[in-house]
């Protein structure tokens, strides 16, 4: 998967940085710690912009190039922040043969957000993702972690409506 560098300005706080440095400290003596550290860093910041990569590089004494290489290898590491409403459409085989492609197109059309992108206001992000293991309920989408299964095209807009309010 191609990954683009972000254009969003970095808004990390000193508290977040302190948290990250603590995590790095905890993993100092663990073998093969880079992955868990990056996973925790992403949990803290929501994504892994260059600024965060630099902190990890310095703290763990690994080159920035190596860190960038690892981040771009794994699809779960994000160079861009997700939307406030993050929609993942499962594109696993079971979901695909039950019409996941049409669901993805439909959501994309309704929100005006392309797959793999975030809306300009940062509100919605949409992604086709790998099997989430709820294949028995195919087709499946998740919105901010909540799973909606056995989805029909006609139900999509109703579900999206739930997330219209700004406080979610």
């Amino acid at each position, binding site marked *: 998967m191609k990954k683009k560098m972000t254009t969003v300005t970095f808004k990390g706080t000193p508290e977040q940085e302190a948290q990250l440095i603590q995590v790095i400290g905890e993993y100092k003596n663990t073998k093969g710690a880079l992955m868990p550290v990056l996973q925790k860093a992403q949990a803290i910041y929501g994504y892994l912009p260059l600024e965060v990569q630099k902190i990890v590089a310095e703290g763990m004494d690994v080159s920035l190039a190596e860190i960038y290489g690892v981040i771009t290898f794994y699809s779960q*590491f994000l160079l861009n922040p997700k939307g406030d409403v993050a929609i993942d459409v499962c*594109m696993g085989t079971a979901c695909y043969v039950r019409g996941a492609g049409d669901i993805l197109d439909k959501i994309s059309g309704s929100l005006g957000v392309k797959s793999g992108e975030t809306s300009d206001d940062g509100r919605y992000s949409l992604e086709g993702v790998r099997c989430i293991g709820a*294949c*028995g309920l195919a087709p499946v989408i998740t919105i901010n972690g909540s799973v909606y299964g*056995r989805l029909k095209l006609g139900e999509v807009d109703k579900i999206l409506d739930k997330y219209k309010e700004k406080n979610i």
Partner: protein
Amino acid sequence: MKINNLADLNALKEEANKRLEVKWKTKIVVGMATCGMAAGATPVMNALKEEIAAGKLENIEVSQVGCIGLCEYEPIIEVFEEGKENNRVTYVKMDAEKAKEVIKTHIAGGKIAEAYTIGAGGEDNISSIENTQFYKHQQRISLRNCGVIDPENIEDYIAGDGYFALAKVLNGMSREDVIKLLKDSGLRGRGGGGFPTGLKWEFAFKQDSDKKYVCCNADEGDPGAFMDRSILEGDPHSVVEAMAIAGYAVGSDEGYIYIRAEYPVAVKRLGIAIDQAKKMGLLGKDIMGSGFNFDLEIRLGAGAFVCGEETALITSIEGNRGEPRPRPPFPAVKGLFGKPTILNNVETYANIGQIILNGADWFSGLGTEKSKGTKVFALGGKITNTGLVEIPMGMTLRKVVGEIGGGIPNGKKFKAAQTGGPSGGCIPASLFDTPIDYDNLTAIGSMMGSGGLIVMDEDTCMVDIAKYFLDFTVDESCGKCGPCRIGTKRMYELLEKITSGNGEEEDLDKLEELGAHIKSASLCGLGQTAPNPVLSTMKYFRDEYISHVKDKKCAAGVCKSLLSYIILEDKCIGCTACKKVCPTEAISGERKEAHAIDQSKCIKCDACVQKCKFGAIIKR
């Protein structure tokens, strides 16, 4: 409580069983695996508890269990009552209101709430899952505790002989004994390759090294397979126990479980299981007073399919890009951090405790000549009973799909079954009577894989499915070797050309030739098997490829570029709804008269089909 020896373990088992027996007067279980929760099991659980409290009902235990297996009918609850004729009743498609009614009618009123049972409305009026076609033909070994015990309670596991296999091994079996037993059992790896597990352990055992590792592959990359998730969510201790046994057998004191981050519930329950085992002294130093030490750590994947391949997985645990390495040296010789390492799949481990307790002969008595025991399959796609089933090796596809799976929904015709995920192939109806085992599936151009079994009907286009899998491998190819990185991309482009209506007959030959080269020249299993979905569909569904190429037609109605949108005159009432929504003004016609679509203007956006309330617009 700390378990210091076999006597302690026995005492705990007895105590746990006593406690469970009391519970068993009436026990209600709620399936709370990912699928159950996604379907709404949590409000059901809450409603049950509320209603029991409101009715001041006593001696009733409500507990969570893992996946019961029948995803299609989630949320599922089951009521077990001691000493009654119908002592197990399965209620399906529950919601909070229905759950409250079950409590009122069944628990308080003593009558089965017939409207909600699994067989409701059916001729034979079955009330328990045990009597359904779905369940009857199964033989549950690795899933034996899933849907039965509370996965977050180690005592439930111990009550059913949990950790007794570890105790047996540590009390009187030599390492050679354990390995011989496994070899005799005939157990083969359930992660796809089917390598004999005992042999793998023996290789690692024979290595002379100061340090060895035991790893578990819980990356479950095959889209459409979810048996490993179910086992970890429903019975995590079975994997923990088996890894400790593996540690003892090969001489390792440290293990890693590499699990997909997409499985948060499984990660959580596995973490709880490891903590509980550590507290009881079933992991850690001097396990049950034997002097044997073993510790476990969880590592999360980050979404890369290739990390399911053993050498890539090891590279990933080491903290690098998960690229595979050439073999040999095999991991059993030089694996994690350069040390001898064994890696087994979740389902493989889930069988091991039972083999130790019941013996090699018991296990090798099941299955076919070369594939012993059972295999779990995830039934998905166009099949009535989606879910997880565990069947003895050697059962025919016809029985699995037709009887256990309940056939194809909506009166559609079966077209193919896909096994082995992106490495596997599509099996046509003509091979339906093939007994399922490792070697048979490979012989017909597919493979066992991890056990995803996706059923496809007449509405599935085989060329499109082949393209779908190629898209997946192009995306997931790690890029290290040329044949896979470049070859799969070229194959994908050819399929894109065919499905968009620009295919030529020679493209089919090119696909076959490229496929053969990629298979023979790629570095790891990903590339070596990537052409399978294309080659197998070309072999069994060649006419579909030809009609895409020659007639520019997609009979299944999937490949958009090859379709025309047509308005059926006899169904169209002339409401003008489609005309209004068409963005290119391709639709003409007067009010109350049949409309028509100008094919030269139509961009196939599907807007009219979605708008039409009368089913008058079809794709052909």
